[in-house]
């Protein structure tokens, strides 16, 4: 029995090797490392699916000037070591020209080698400022506004919508003690000062904090008009909002991209009504947006059982759109599709109109877009509360 299993395993290994050697037609290779298992799998599988579908859709639309796109992915289990291993494995075997990484950590760790050795265009699921710094990491971009810019967008909205007319709006920052949580805070403080929004409190917790009563009490003391969460996906947001409502606070709670999912609204239940936040993309429910209609039709055709796609799927899809966009720009200019050429196209993306899917996209002075839209939760769905906001 054991030898049979062994034999079939060896056979399997040989077959896969042969299959790898067989297909060698010219394609544009795009790779991804996403957490399809592990604690971030709930988003990872959608990020991966979004990119896969976006690229398959581009292929249906004629690929990159006739060249087919080939998508290669690996699971990382949300483990830095495995993410880097997957990246190196793909680079050694497949030589892709564009890659979609899983986390801020992976981008940071790979940055020196991408800049000096691999030289491929690198997008990721992270909105970290460091990965959008063109001077430092010219090959890396952020598929939307950085966390700092997302704070900027929210603060801009807050400055324009004070709760009491003629009085400056007050805000509290509520963030986790992680890189994800702290990344935008220094910028946010500056931005608030510039916009005349008063930061009345900053609450810091551990990532999956359960007991947040002291922070809620502090919020009660300062009674801010708005409170922005950063560095959380779900907990402790529901307990904070519930606690604040129990104390009779009428603070409007807000989140950035990762705290703007329908999953969170599900957990919030009735408390979720009126929850706001910034998202760089349109939601599945906005059927009046052309690209959303395209996405829904695509899913209807290829995944008929799917009846909802979260904002992480939209991030994957939008990253795919950027990849395709810059590759087509290369092709139009008659340049070979290589990492250095793709990188040079990025700053040339200006006023790219994505309809209401992601606003007008320009990678002007940094490799992030600086555009987003404020949404508000109504009956368990996010609906636009503002038009597209652009950071100058």
């Amino acid at each position, binding site marked *: 029995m054991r030898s049979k299993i062994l034999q079939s*395993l060896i056979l*399997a*290994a040989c*077959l*896969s090797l042969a*299959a790898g050697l067989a297909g060698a037609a010219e394609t544009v290779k795009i790779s991804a490392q996403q957490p*399809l*298992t*592990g604690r971030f*799998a709930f988003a990872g*599988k959608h990020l991966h699916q979004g990119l896969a579908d976006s690229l398959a859709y581009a292929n249906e639309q004629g690929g990159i000037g006739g060249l087919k796109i080939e998508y290669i992915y*690996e*699971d990382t*289990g949300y*483990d*830095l*070591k*495995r993410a*880097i*291993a997957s990246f*190196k*494995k793909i*680079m*050694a*075997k497949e030589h892709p020209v564009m890659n979609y990484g899983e986390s801020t*950590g992976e981008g*940071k*760790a790979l*940055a*020196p080698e991408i800049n*000096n*050795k691999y030289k491929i265009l690198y997008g990721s699921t992270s909105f970290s400022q*460091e990965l959008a710094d063109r001077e430092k990491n010219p090959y890396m971009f952020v598929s939307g506004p950085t966390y700092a810019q997302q704070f900027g967008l929210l603060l801009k909205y807050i400055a324009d919508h004070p709760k009491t007319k003629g009085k400056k709006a007050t805000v509290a920052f509520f963030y986790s*003690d*992680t*890189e994800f949580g*702290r*990344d935008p805070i220094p910028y946010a403080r500056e931005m608030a000062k510039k916009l005349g929004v008063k930061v009345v409190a900053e609450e810091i917790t551990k990532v999956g904090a359960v007991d947040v009563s002291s922070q809620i009490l502090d919020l009660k003391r300062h009674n801010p008009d708005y409170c922005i969460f950063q560095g959380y996906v779900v907990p402790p947001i529901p307990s904070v909002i519930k606690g604040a409502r129990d104390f009779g606070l009428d603070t409007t709670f807000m989140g950035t991209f990762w705290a703007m999912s329908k999953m969170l609204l599900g957990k919030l239940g009735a408390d979720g009504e009126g929850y706001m936040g910034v998202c760089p993309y349109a939601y599945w429910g906005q059927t009046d947006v052309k690209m959303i209609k395209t996405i829904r039709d695509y899913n209807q055709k290829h995944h008929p059982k799917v009846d909802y796609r979260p904002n992480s799927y939209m991030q994957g899809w939008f990253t795919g759109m950027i990849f395709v966009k810059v590759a087509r720009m290369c092709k139009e200019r008659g340049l070979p599709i290589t990492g250095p050429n793709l990188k040079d196209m990025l700053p040339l993306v200006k006023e790219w109109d994505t309809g209401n899917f992601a606003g007008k996209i320009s990678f002007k002075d940094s490799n992030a877009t600086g555009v987003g839209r404020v949404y508000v939760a109504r009956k368990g769905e996010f609906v636009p509360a503002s038009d597209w906001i652009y950071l100058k």
Partner: protein
Amino acid sequence: MRIGDYKESYAADEAVFSTPTSRFWLGVLFAAMAAFPFFAGDYLLYMANITGIAIVAALGLNILTGATGQISLGHAAFIGIGAYTSAILTNRFGLPYLLCLPLAGLAAAFFGILVGAPSMRMKGLYLCITTLAAQVIFEFLFVHWETLTGGIRGLNVPAPEVFGLKIDSEFSFYWITAVVVIIAATVSRNLFRTRMGRAFIAIRDRDISAELMGINLFRYKLYAFAISSFLAGIAGSLWVGHLRSITPEHFPLHESIRYLAMIIVGGLGNILGAIYGAIFMTMIPELLQSVLKYFESMFPQAMAFLFPLQTVVFGLLIVVFLVFEPHGLAEIWCRIKNFFRLWPFKH
């Protein structure tokens, strides 16, 4: 069957690799290790490098937990101390990497002694909790001592230079890892042939008896903490030299637990065990994924269920190994070896 294994001198009796066969296979291993980078690509070399780093750290924890019986939940923190020391010494003082390596070890050893100090009054689970506290405290320092550690953004380091050569590829770093692993394994192996090593084992087996035999428990426990953290610090320095960036998120509590799992799966108190455990814990998830990838072409729709299965299978493998061989992978290896040694006889 091996026969004629006579020892005619004290030197022969004391040899670690006592037979020509074992020396031959050791030679083969070294030759394979030397030839490996010339055939392997970047991916395999990367795996070899992180496995090597894991081996050095696991050897360290094996001395403290496996041999001396002091369970530590703070091993990742010591690796972190080594990594930060190495990065800071490189960035601020421009010290050469080969000097940073031992200094990172010494820094970790110093803090290891501090953390080990409560072992004077505590043992078992109580001591375990103090090491957990150390993990939390150091993690906090990595995040909040921003002037020194760069806070949550961590530090970036230039590629190390050794004898004027820039070590900026997996290939070149492999040689550093390989040499350090060989030194660490040799030192650990020989440690258990000294008074100190035997004292460690005596403490693990029965501390009161050890004390009656004249072993100063406190001092030897501190030695164990120091040596263990020293190796962890070296592993940390290797980590930062290899990755060239560190953030506090590289050294979480579950990393400490992973190292404990390594030495338990490998075989507690056994040098080979630490090595096998490190290889097992690093390579198996990768192997599982490769197997799954193969199935993907056959059942593309089933991947949503198959992928999460990796974690389950990995967990099950650990349980199965431990049920069938509580002494770990090293013991399984030992039985295989004995089979060949006695062949064609059974006993």
